[in-house]
């Protein structure tokens, strides 16, 4: 079984106001695609009610950094009371959504994701020695990459949502 090393845990972000659900979703997917992540959507839930839509999405894109390590970023997006509104921007009517969002970020470095080093106790021992003494620099470098990707993703979503806040 692969080993998961937590890098960033439970970083939350919340926003309330105008935004575009479709554009936010596309922006997140585009960002991951540009960064070379493989898409993985665990869950997508939508409830339609008179007070607005409830949307709950869980995505877990991953990127293989080497044959041994991969970066996994888990994002849980929960939206409440999402309604469609029409606003006037630059003398044009634009359809947007209004509601509140909460986003939770977690990321981790998954090593030996193919479970090749766990077939015998000797391999497992060798893997631990290798991780601790020989591969330490690489692991640290990979950890930095995962953390930097997570922070960049967070910053991208923040700036995306701020754009709506200031462009009313």
């Amino acid at each position, binding site marked *: 079984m692969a080993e998961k090393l937590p890098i960033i845990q439970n970083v939350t972000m919340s926003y309330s106001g105008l935004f575009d*659900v*479709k554009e936010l*979703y*596309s922006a*997140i*997917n*585009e960002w991951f695609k540009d960064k070379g992540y*493989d*898409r*993985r*959507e*665990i*869950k*997508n*839930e*939508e*409830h*339609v*009610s008179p007070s607005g*839509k409830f*949307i*709950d*999405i869980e995505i877990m894109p991953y990127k293989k950094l080497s044959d041994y390590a991969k970066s996994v970023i888990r994002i849980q997006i929960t939206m409440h009371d*999402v309604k469609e509104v029409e606003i006037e921007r630059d003398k044009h009517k634009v359809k947007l*959504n209004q509601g509140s969002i909460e986003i939770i970020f977690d990321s981790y470095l998954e090593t030996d994701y193919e479970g090749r080093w766990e077939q015998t106790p000797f391999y497992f021992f060798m893997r631990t020695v290798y991780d601790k003494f020989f591969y330490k620099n690489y692991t640290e470098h990979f950890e930095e990459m995962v953390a930097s990707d997570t922070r960049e993703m967070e910053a991208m979503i923040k700036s995306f949502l701020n754009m709506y806040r200031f462009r009313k």
Partner: protein
Amino acid sequence: MLNKNIPPTILKYKGIFDIGALYKFMSHWLLNEQFEFYETKYKHKPPKIEINWEANKRITSYVKYIMEIHFYFYGVNDVEVIKDGAKRKMQDARVVITFSGKVETDYPDIYGDKNWEKNKFFVKAKKFFENYIIRQDLDVKHIDPFYYYILRFYEDVKSFLGMETVGGLS
């Protein structure tokens, strides 16, 4: 036989939609993509409906894609809505659709025999073949594309239901 499982993706929706139209849309999608599909379970116990589908497509004489779809409709109530000026019978319901799949190698022929399991030599040769010769090919040419293929179907279903979060596969 190698069975590479593709992780499941879950779609949940609550609202007003046409169950019959969703059923037709999804079955036509699979048939248009040249899948053979079977309904392995149909359980209708109002207000719940549970359906299992297994769709498969032979890609080469060695590789076959198998898609498994599980539907669970609950809280199903018939409602009448006016859509495009006409009265239509739809359902106010909750649905959970689970999409999963696997890539099967050396699949059995119509008689249930597998070409690579006829004698011990072939069994060992197959193991070597899959672990060392075509391992990368299976990953790159079959498992990843099939996963994205399932996601495309999943996106089309989201779009059919009118969900907000569509368009992630641009």
